[in-house]
């Protein structure tokens, strides 16, 4: 009883010892904050990676893919059907995207992924990353509300806004076409002498800049017109005139502002850059391509190293927050990519885009979502042994294996940080040791008294050990509270810090997060707190042993 009473009294009367555990407190608080922020970042990152990839991926070793997705899916169903919640085929291939911006053509190397959006969204829900389903913020203010709700099925339909912008864009492109045609600069061969006749033409062109005027010459080829450069066919100017090709051209008389068959979700990093407005000092995100516009995609055909080109309409821009993906991925409709690469052949030569089914073509990978991710190991093993193990046609990996180095690097970073911070707490332990030694020296006479009154050496030792433990409990307890409060109000603290320093401490343009993500793992918090307590107790072992070994007579004589 006296042990705890004395430990308690020492705790309340020796403020110097409390000062010595401030470093423990700060160490514990820092460890909690750092761990929470790091696991916040890494769990956000994992979420994003996981949303782009899927639980388990079966990929063909060759980029030509496997010809029979039906068979492959049936095989997977047979092998691991019980574990699978959903699967979706994809075609992944390297390629290039190009688009016109500010009078020049921009080229970007990309990975083109052919997907079935519904299936893909089931396997890994990436619909929330579409910009049309997000709020757009600038400097913390919502500048645009989501255009569609998250629950809407993910498909290739354009939003109303995208359609409007497409219309505008096409009109502009047509005007540019006409303008270039008429006023093409000297480097291009011009049909007309670039003298005064140009002025005349300009007057004549005025109505052409609208869409009313029909230009039959631009419609000579059906395939040409599908690239969106043709002018809408207006009602015949001459009422009595009957076009003998009317029936044939009916199909081609579609709305030229209608989007193309090829549709893409394009990564935000590919088509945007942050732009600092010099006048206001605010940073805006400048988009070079908006949904509704067309981009050119180039990739290779199967079988032989030949380029495959196609145009596609941008349906949406996606921004996952992983720059590795946002600056690299273009999602395309599966059938278009198969068609362009010669993985799928159309049965209808007049309208090749009609009635296509990806199941008839080839795919390069199958993404699988499991009912329970804990089964991933077993599923991967079964698939590896079940799917043509000798030929090496397929590679089966979980998303963690595919992103192994990145995840390992993050885990390593956090482990090293933890070791360093724990060393700080250990250093604090030596501070406790020194101060405890002093306290034992100061209390020498009291120790002698206690021994004279019959206290055993063990009892005296327990006084100082429990003193150390209670210091550790107070220190790490305050540290835990401080750390948790810091984590809880980290965004407010960030704002205050930004205000005080005049610099943005946490720039959302860099990190993609609006707020600093934090995840408090109770296990980690407990572990840190217990570790700090153990260090405090260990630091008090030596002084406590010294106190226990004191000879009562000498201790009593000590002045």
């Amino acid at each position, binding site marked *: 009883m006296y042990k705890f009473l004395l430990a308690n009294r020492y705790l309340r009367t020796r403020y110097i010892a409390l000062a010595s555990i401030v470093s423990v407190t700060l160490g514990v608080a820092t460890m909690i904050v750092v761990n929470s922020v790091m696991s916040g970042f890494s769990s956000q990152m994992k979420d994003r990676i996981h949303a782009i990839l899927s639980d388990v991926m079966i990929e063909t070793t060759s980029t030509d893919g496997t010809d029979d997705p039906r068979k492959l899916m049936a095989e997977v169903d047979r092998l691991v059907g019980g574990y699978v919640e959903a699967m979706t085929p994809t075609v992944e291939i390297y390629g290039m995207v190009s688009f016109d911006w500010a009078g020049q053509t921009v080229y970007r190397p990309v990975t083109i992924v052919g997907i079935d959006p519904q299936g893909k969204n089931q396997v890994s829900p990436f619909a929330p990353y579409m910009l049309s389903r997000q709020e757009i913020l600038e400097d913390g203010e919502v500048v645009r509300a989501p255009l569609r709700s998250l629950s809407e099925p993910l498909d290739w339909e354009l939003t109303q806004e995208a359609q409007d912008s497409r219309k505008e864009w096409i009109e502009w492109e047509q005007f540019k076409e006409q303008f270039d045609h008429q006023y093409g600069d000297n480097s291009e061969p011009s049909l007309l002498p670039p003298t005064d006749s140009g002025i005349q033409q300009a007057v004549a062109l005025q109505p052409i800049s609208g869409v009313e005027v029909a230009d039959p010459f631009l419609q000579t080829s059906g395939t040409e017109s599908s690239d969106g450069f043709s002018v809408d066919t207006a009602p015949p100017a001459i009422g009595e005139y009957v076009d003998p090709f009317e029936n044939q051209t009916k199909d081609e008389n579609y709305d030229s502002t209608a989007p193309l068959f090829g549709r893409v979700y394009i990564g935000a990093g590919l088509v945007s850059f942050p732009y600092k407005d010099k006048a206001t000092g605010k940073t805006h995100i400048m988009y070079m391509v908006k949904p509704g516009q067309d981009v050119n995609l180039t990739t290779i055909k199967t079988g032989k190293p030949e380029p495959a080109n196609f145009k596609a309409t941008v349906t949406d821009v996606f921004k996952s927050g992983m720059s590795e993906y946002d600056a690299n991925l273009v999602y395309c409709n599966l059938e278009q990519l198969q068609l362009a690469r010669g993985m799928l052949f159309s049965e209808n030569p007049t309208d090749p885009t009609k009635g296509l089914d990806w199941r008839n073509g080839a795919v390069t990978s199958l993404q699988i979502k499991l009912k329970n991710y804990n089964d991933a190991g077993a599923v991967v093993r079964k698939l590896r042994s079940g799917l043509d193990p000798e030929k090496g046609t397929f590679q089966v990996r979980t998303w963690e294996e595919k992103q192994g180095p990145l995840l390992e690097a993050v885990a390593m970073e956090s482990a090293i940080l933890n070791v360093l911070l724990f060393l700080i707490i250990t250093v604090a332990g030596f501070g406790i040791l020194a101060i405890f030694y002093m306290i034992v020296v100061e209390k020498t006479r*009291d120790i002698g008294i206690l021994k*004279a*009154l*019959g*206290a055993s050496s063990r009892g005296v030792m327990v006084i100082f050990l429990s003193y150390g433990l209670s210091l550790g409990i107070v220190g790490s307890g305050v540290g835990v509270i401080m750390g948790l409060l810091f984590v809880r109000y980290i965004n407010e603290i960030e704002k205050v810090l930004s205000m005080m320093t005049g610099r943005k401490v946490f720039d959302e343009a860099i990190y993609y997060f609006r707020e600093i993500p934090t995840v408090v793992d109770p296990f980690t918090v407990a572990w840190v707190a217990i570790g700090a307590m153990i260090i405090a107790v260990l630091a008090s072992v030596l002084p406590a042993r010294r106190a226990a070994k004191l000879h009562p*007579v000498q201790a009593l004589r000590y002045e």
Partner: protein
Amino acid sequence: MSQPATLSMTQPVHLCAKALDKAYRKGEHQVYVLRGVDAKLERGEFLSIVGQSGSGKSTLMHLLGLLDEPDVGEVWLDGNRIDNLPATTRDELRNHVFGFVFQFYHLLPELTLLENVLCPLMIRYSAWEYWKRRVEFRDKAKAIAKQVGLDHRLSHRPSELSGGEMQRAAIARALIGEPSVLLADEPTGNLDSQTGGEIMNLLHQLNEEKKLTIVMVTHDEKIAQQAQRIVRLSEGRIQSLNEAA
């Protein structure tokens, strides 16, 4: 171990020292403090040990009270040798049999007077046991404090007390464990003569009323004369055993 067993039927001497030798090392030299000291103490006796500074009287008291071990010689309590017992048993004996009063009071500065008085009981019982009986113990401590005349200052810290009050508190602390021997090392050495006289009266009263065995160490002849028997020590040897006047 609650109370040491008293087996002998013939009621041997309560506490006795047999040929005690004690030396301290000072650098290379051995300094002999006690050289073959014998002493006997009957139950209920008031013995004083007198001597010059350095004559070994405090050391003799420490050896009797098991605070120290003799180099040669034995200490017997009620017919049992106690100086060679294991450390934990000696700790318990100190707690149960002996009560100490020191010249400089030696109260624990962090505790209140009441808590200081309760210290031996806190040491004796486990935390749980003490907690269960805390009311009983507190009452007992209050009664003893009243007996030594301190019942109005129970919640004061030692630093807020006068020397006489501190010594009274120390005596109360020594008494609460109901010891059979009270060992007092210069109990009046730090007090003025009037306060010292009050303390001496208190000790006499305890000796007479409660038949408490008291060993008092002092260098003051006048104080020593108040005891029943005097042991004179000089340079580690017993000079004479006098009956007090």
